[in-house]
């Protein structure tokens, strides 16, 4: 049903979705949080980003979503150099990324439907198209029929699935998840991870930050390990 999203990119650029080239991030208060990070992710690749708390996982994700800017080095997202992105271009770059958060970041006063529809409204889709895509997305995460519910009426696992439906509804070529299972029990976590695998199988690049080593080791994917701001294993 869902078509591979990024096949048309392969012909235009080399087959790289995300590329870090000697990237550092320094905060005036805390010093270097990331040091000399270099790696790249192919289109349709799935990887875990791991490390102790404070190792710089969240900071690395923030650099990709241009919530923060790198102090040194180059980041290429789908061929666009994020260092050169102007402020007014950032919203359009963010539409290439589906962001998923540990605390879900849902709007509590909006229904599930409205939450998932938000990226589509922002991108300027017509009502009919919005309705169709929201339903398709909710169907994908197994929440079809809960459109009219409010987030607080759902369980934690369901809320996170709403978050995932919102992240993928705009069919972004890449998904970034920051501790997506941090608030969930192992069984629900495994379900969520299985969902990510499904997106990866249709060509979406997935990068998941997590410190849940046991869960990561069960799955056979590339692991990027950060230690005190440096990439120690890839």
């Amino acid at each position, binding site marked *: 049903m869902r078509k591979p999203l990024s096949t048309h990119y392969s012909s235009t650029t080399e087959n790289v979705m995300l590329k870090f080239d000697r990237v550092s991030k320094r905060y005036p208060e805390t010093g270097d949080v990331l040091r000399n990070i270099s790696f790249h992710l192919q289109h349709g690749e799935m990887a875990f980003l791991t490390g102790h708390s404070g190792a710089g996982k969240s900071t690395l994700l923030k650099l990709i979503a241009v919530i923060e800017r790198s102090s040194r080095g180059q980041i290429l997202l789908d061929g666009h150099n994020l260092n050169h992105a102007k402020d007014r271009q950032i*919203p359009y*770059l963010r539409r290439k990324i589906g962001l998923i958060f540990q605390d879900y*970041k849902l709007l509590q006063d909006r229904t599930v439907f409205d939450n998932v529809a938000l990226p589509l409204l922002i991108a300027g889709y017509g009502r009919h198209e919005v309705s169709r895509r929201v339903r398709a997305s909710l169907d994908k995460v197994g929440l079809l029929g809960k459109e009219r519910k409010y987030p607080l009426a759902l369980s934690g696992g369901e809320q996170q699935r709403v978050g995932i439906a919102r992240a993928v509804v705009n069919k972004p070529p890449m998904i970034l998840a920051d501790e997506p299972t941090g608030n969930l029990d192992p069984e629900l976590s495994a379900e969520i991870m299985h969902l990510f695998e499904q997106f990866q199988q249709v060509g979406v690049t997935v990068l998941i930050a997590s410190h849940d080593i046991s869960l990561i080791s069960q799955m056979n994917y590339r692991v990027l390990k950060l230690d005190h701001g440096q990439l120690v294993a890839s």
Partner: protein
Amino acid sequence: MKGRKNTASFPNILAMIFRSLYGEREKRMPARHQRHHPKNKKTAQTRPDGPQTRVSGGDFSDKLHAYFDLHAHALFSSLGRLVDSPYTSIMTITVLAIAISLASGFYIVVANLQQLAGNLEASNQISLFLRDDISDANARKFAASIKRNPSVQEVKLITKSEAMEEFQTYSGFGEAVKSLGKNPLPNVVQVLPENALEDRQELENLLNTFKQAFEVDFAQMDMDWVRRLQSFMELARRAGILLSLLLGVAVLFVTGNTIRLELHNRREEVVIAKLVGATNSFIQRPFLYSGFWIGFFSGVAAWFIVAVMMLILKRPIEELSGLYEGDFHLLFLSYSETLVLLFISSLLGVLGSWAVLSYQLQQLKPE
């Protein structure tokens, strides 16, 4: 009170507008959908989405409809939020309405005074107050002699007793004056110079000739006090402009602050919208519409405040005007002035919100 009345009828009006908007769109939907769908797929395959690509998919009319949908949604949802917190809204709108009504009330007062001065402007009449010892008969003779002057168009003698009678009728001091025993009022000759005598210098010359006459105690050109009134009017007009500017700035700041608070209350929503790729203009839109509604309703409320004030003042003013035998009619805001009032107050609302938003959204970074 007014606000309440408005809110009571809002749901009906809103429902009507929505029905007319969406009822129509529903009919068009299937055709447009069929038309646009295959095209959508084609474009998606040929064109990679650069950051400049605003909308991925959908043909132009679909985007246009989506755009109008967004505006309509922002327009009505911001109105809905105003109605949802009636007390805050009513308080803000009342404060703004008072500020706006002060400015427009002052404008009307000046406009009415200007009208009054306009009526007087035509009179370049000269009043000659005759000496106390000149009898009525001599006064008549003197008036007749003036009439022969070629520069004079018309002469009117108001004798002591006529003046007294008029004074007693209109001033309400009749009894007090009677107790004086003696009529303190002078004979007055009102001289209307030829129309041709526009030149101020010639008027001065005429006045000087009259001043030198034995019978004249004191000669005064009415023009002088018309001029004084006019310069006073100019002063009042400028004071009005200054006052309006100050009040306009106050309206800007009050609206801006209201919007700032609303932005603060909805901070989480704004952050999430930014994270999923909302542009600043998308985020601003509902807040700008809130500012518009606040300004617009303040304008409407201000109009009502001015209208009530005018109704209260209308009767006494017209009575007063009757006492001066004037055909003075109280001016009120015309249709175009009302439109200008509403336009300016809406504009101030939007500008106040815009100023705050463009600053605050720069500051507001996700996380």
